[in-house]
């Protein structure tokens, strides 16, 4: 376990040299800190457009590889955007595929289950069904995901709608629609579209009987889920929270929705270069899909069982722009509020942040506003704080984006290296900070911040710290 920090059952910490070199900075928080439970990250798993092997995907991100290519999940050749970041050739692990608990799952739930199983194993937790597993208190294990709705059954939906369409009336004939719908829609495929289904399946798989929730705050959802899951552990309502998110919107109506909003890149001639966060020529985001799941754990619980602590989650802030349905606040008011709240929660100042994992979607508006918000908080230090967006390589996993980015932050802390912003070539006058262009960079990284901003003005920020006692 390279660079991880091992804590044995007596509480002795075996720390590698890189950790000793980074002694904890004195806290200069702006409010007194009451003793509260600390929350450790002890396991991680993901299913991404670059694969689902934790270390393999990380290596690809550091090498600047792209998971973006022509869309194959449906025929998108006539759409304004013909490419996306698909999870290619995904198959569920055999035990999950064969489980009667998960027979009818949708695509996003499959991603969530797979990522969660990897995270659970990575955390060194006993597998469900084993005698060691039976020693865990199921009511102390919860789940909090920020997962999106499942994909509409497009074929059945369109066939039924067209069969029932009455051209003269300019409306669907409800009698025809109803009759055909009851015969053609599949019960389980319908109910599996509920956004809480990935969380419900995790609860089933791991017999997690503590708090189980799902939030759906658009592109900020899984960042928010991680923040709220941390709060649940701090509050003492659970010892372990399986947290993150899963989403797939790569289906005809998903792409239609974003194309109509003109939010997607239409760089059809060169999909690999389509997502260009902070670059002056950026023309929109690239729709991706996948899941990221982290195991959050009460630090004392993790130490008692001798778990490896990969990082500590120390700050979370949430805010609403309360400005417009379609646009971010032009001065980044909500983004600033979320970042400030996260710093306050962590008892840290902006000067202590070593790296920012940006929301960085590659839309004109987001990247300028995010840059402005960072400048407003970091002041003179803004230019000296490295910022990067892995959406340049993975696309935008929408509800799942924040969880995958949080995992990237943990790996950056572990390996003391920052992933690049790929496809960066033309400097934008409004985006004039250090975006770690095109090349991964070695750096001393103790504290990192991850931002997520959603449609509708939802802003969430997390702060993670390299673990030391």
């Amino acid at each position, binding site marked *: 376990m390279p660079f991880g920090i091992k804590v044995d059952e007596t509480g002795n910490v075996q720390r590698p040299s890189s950790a000793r070199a980074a002694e904890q900075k004195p806290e200069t928080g702006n409010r007194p800190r009451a003793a509260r439970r600390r929350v450790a990250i002890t396991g991680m798993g993901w299913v991404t457009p670059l694969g689902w092997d934790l270390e393999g995907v990380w290596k690809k991100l550091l090498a600047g590889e792209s998971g973006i290519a022509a869309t194959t999940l449906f025929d998108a050749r*006539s759409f304004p955007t013909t490419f996306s970041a698909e999870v290619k050739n995904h198959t569920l692990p055999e035990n999950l595929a064969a489980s009667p608990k998960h027979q009818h799952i949708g695509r996003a739930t499959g991603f969530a289950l797979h990522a969660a199983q990897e995270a659970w194993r990575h955390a060194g937790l006993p597998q469900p069904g084993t005698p060691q597993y039976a020693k865990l208190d199921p009511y102390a294990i919860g789940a909090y995901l920020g997962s999106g709705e499942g994909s509409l059954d497009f074929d059945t939906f369109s066939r039924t709608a067209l069969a029932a369409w009455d051209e003269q009336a300019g409306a669907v004939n409800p009698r025809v629609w109803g009759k055909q719908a009851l015969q053609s829609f599949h019960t389980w495929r319908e109910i599996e579209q509920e956004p809480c289904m990935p969380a419900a399946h995790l609860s089933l798989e791991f017999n997690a*009987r503590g708090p189980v929730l799902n939030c759906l705050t658009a592109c900020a959802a899984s960042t928010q889920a991680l923040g709220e899951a941390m709060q649940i552990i701090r509050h003492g309502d659970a010892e372990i929270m399986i947290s993150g998110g899963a989403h797939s919107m790569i289906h005809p109506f998903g792409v239609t929705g974003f194309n109509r909003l003109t939010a997607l890149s239409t760089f059809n001639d060169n999909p690999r270069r389509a997502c260009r966060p902070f670059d002056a020529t950026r023309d929109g985001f690239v729709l991706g899909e996948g899941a990221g799941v982290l195991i959050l754990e009460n630090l004392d619980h993790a130490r008692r069982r001798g778990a490896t602590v990969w990082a500590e989650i120390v700050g979370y802030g949430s805010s609403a722009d309360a400005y417009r349905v379609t646009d971010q606040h032009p001065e980044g008011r909500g983004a600033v509020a979320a970042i400030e709240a996260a710093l306050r929660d962590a008892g840290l100042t902006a000067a202590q942040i070593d790296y920012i994992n940006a929301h960085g979607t590659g839309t004109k508006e987001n990247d300028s506003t995010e840059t402005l918000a960072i400048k407003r908080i970091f002041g003179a230090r803004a230019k000296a704080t490295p910022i990067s967006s892995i959406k340049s390589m993975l696309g935008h996993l929408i509800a799942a984006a924040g969880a995958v980015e949080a995992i990237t932050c943990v790996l950056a802390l572990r390996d003391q290296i920052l992933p690049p912003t790929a496809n960066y070539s033309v400097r934008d006058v409004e985006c004039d900070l250090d975006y770690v262009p095109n090349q991964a960079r070695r750096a001393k990284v103790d504290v990192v911040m991850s931002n997520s901003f959603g449609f509708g003005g939802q802003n969430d920020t997390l702060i993670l710290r390299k673990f030391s006692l």
Partner: protein
Amino acid sequence: MRRVVITGVGAISPHGLSAAELWKGLREGRSSTTVLTRFESSAFPSRVAGEVAPFKITDYVPKSYRKATKIMSRDIELAVVAADGAVRDAKLATRGIVESSGGKKPDESWLTVDPRRVGCNIGAGLISADLNELSAAMAAAKEPDGTLSLRRWGRSDHPTELAGMDRLTPLWLLKYLPNMLACHVSIIHDTQGPSNTITCQQASAGLALAEACRTIQRGEADLALVGGCESLIHPMGLMRWTLLNRLNIGANDQPAKACRPLDQAAAGTVIAEGGAVLVMEELAQARARGARIYCEIAGRGESSSASGVSRPDVTGEALAVAMSKALREAAIGPEAVDLVVPPGYGIPEFDQAEVRAIHRVFGSQPRPAIVPMRGGIGDCGAGAQAIDLVAAAIAVAEQIIPPAVNCPQPLDGLDAPREARAGTALRHALVAASSISGQNSVIILRQIG
């Protein structure tokens, strides 16, 4: 620890467009489920619904925001109406209220709020797209064999004709994102504090309330608008609930008696629409400004049944654990609870599982009155527990227990009142919800002197 109280309630339900009408309907033991009228439903075996009476959404938003009502789906409209009621009830002079009152507070007793200290946490469901709007666009890309041409959906063959997708309004997607309930409410009332959208079906509102409660306790906000709203009255909603066998298909000629929660003759639920929003406030602030305090949030508990989707937890164990957690947080025993509002769907196997949970916590002859609120309303998904919470908050404030509607023969020893009860102390009300995928949320409300 900062204490959190409820200082405003707003509701929209089959009983009416306000919390007052909801309470009147509940107190009088009325049923507002009727024959479904929103769309022609003759192809479906259950044709009963709890519909909200017609309203004009532009009456509930400030003038400057009227244009935005064009991109509000039904679920969003419900939340906007409920939030308007809650904010007015709590006398919060939010941006929307001030603008609607000609740029000033309605009167001096209203609280000027700091927008950064107000959170918004409104549960939502899976919002179905308008069938006619989407089908009209698809019909423009229909192949001769009746299937949809994805090619012509994306790009038109004729320069003068629109492609299928281009017939949808550019902001089409934004009508259907679940977080748009909280988004519109936060813009109208300028709530810039912590915001979230919990999507856990019927348990959404309690989970949202619990989360916002922690936010206020930690000091990150002083006020929060919380709740949930959903409309299942949509052909897709009716189709889904029909396929899941959740509906009573034998009561089309007796629609008012279709939903009979915890009654021995329960035979399924009814699709409905509605929801509620509550104003939560830090106690000291509420007292200082002389707000009307309905009750205190005394405790909350959460659990997951892990029993599978749309399968009841036959042991009742997980729901009982959530109830016990809430009692522990409230630092009371079960004997201090005078009213239990159970999930109460009216689906026999789910009702029986709830009764087992109640027996586990309150014994085989439970002392508190058991009042399911769904009998005259039906199932409005993410709005369900929000309505229950508003009902319980008013019950505690008024010290009146409303009757259990459509429950003349309650299951196993339950005390389900046939008439409203007053004159006995209502110290604590316990509101429990279970979603169809197994999430449980329990909230205990305490009378405050």
